[in-house]
């Protein structure tokens, strides 16, 4: 079975640059202040793995973790 990815935004590090939401709107959403958190439990649906890595590599605060399960 292919490995599954999970994304997580560290709320202590996120400063609301919103790059993740722009690049991977399926995986991230913003609160009323514009700070990001993962959609649901952060499980990355098949086919969106590239977007998860893209979001991580464009977060200026290094607030996004991508783990392989």
């Amino acid at each position, binding site marked *: 079975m292919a490995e599954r990815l999970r994304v997580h935004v560290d709320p202590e590090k996120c*400063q*609301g*640059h*919103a*790059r993740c*939401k*722009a690049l991977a709107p399926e995986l991230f959403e*913003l609160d*009323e*202040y*514009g700070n990001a958190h993962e959609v649901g439990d952060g499980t990355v649906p098949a086919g969106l793995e590239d977007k998860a890595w*893209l979001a991580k*590599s*464009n*977060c*200026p*605060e*290094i607030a996004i973790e991508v783990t392989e399960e």
Partner: protein
Amino acid sequence: MSDVSQPAAHPPVTDWLHDFDHTDPRWTEDPFPIWDQMRAASPVVHTERFLGCYLPTTYEAVRQIANDTESFSSRRIIVRDERPEVAKNAAPPITSDPPDHKPAKQLLLPPFTPDAMKKLEPRVRAICNELIDEFIADGKVDAAARYTKHIPVRAIAHMLGIPESDGDLFIKWIHMILELSIKNEMMLKQAAEEMTNYFAGHVEARKKAPGDDLISYLLNARDKNGQPLDDSHIYGSLRLLLIAGIDTTWSAIGSSLWHLAKTPADRERLIAEPELMPIAVEELLRAYSPVTMAREVMKETTIAGCPVKPGNMVLLSFPAANRDPKMFPDADRVVLDRRENRHAAFGLGIHRCVGSNLARMEMQVAIEEWLKRIPDFRLNPAGTVTWSQGTVRGPRQLPFLLGKAM
């Protein structure tokens, strides 16, 4: 007291590593080789000018300073010849440190989310087209004077609910605060007073008849104890929104069009691949970041191995960080589809620009509408491109010829 002529010159720089000056004409004209020279020498350089000031030259040094709010205060955010007395509520939250910073910042965030910007987008598109209508038939234009300047002026005026036609006043105050005040402290006081007087009338009017605008929003806001904000806080934040929202984005749009004017391949690619625009905007922000903030050193510490002492200012050069080749391969090349781009154009850490989503939307819309109407344009060899000095760098004269070259 209304003199807004150019400030006195500093002695020319002969040693960029030990005596740098970000107001030197060579820095204003082309700072990139200067930053490369500094970065090759040290991650932090120092000058005795401005009563003592450091400049971090690498991305990591900039990040370390931005994240260390205990050693580096935001109570002074512009490097000047003098250190004017610190005013309470100068321009919260940009001039606030923890613990005051967070509540002041949270007040301003909701009106600037990406969703809020989507509602403003149709007005900005209309503004761009109204401006283009005025000069497109002329075959040439100073795009800084007639296009890039007016987009953020009108957008922020629209958000604040003040007349878009007062734009020239806003530009005058910004020039006084961000450029002239570096060498003449009186300019700061004069501009702040004039702005407060200007806003007072609008604040009184909103108290009687609130509207769907940012002034009314601030008047309705409550602090953590449920109390309305101090007048000084409201006026400080209004000053910030006006100052921070205009020549920053003016500069970013201007530098982007300057790049596209002299790089036909990038222009053609954006026209052929419009879906690339959001990523291209990030790359243009990286390569031509307009804003350099400052900090004041409060505690002795070490940055990237270099000792840093209180009593000095720090020029927190996000633009230099964004050209660090260790962080960005081919840092001096604009790569429109750069895949990994953690640029710091909007700052790093708790002071991330409140208006970043507004700036991005304005940039994207301004470039899109320009390219739709003016797919071919180039620098006018009969004119001169000039750049603003100091805290915010961008083109202030941008002479273009419109249409295909004959």
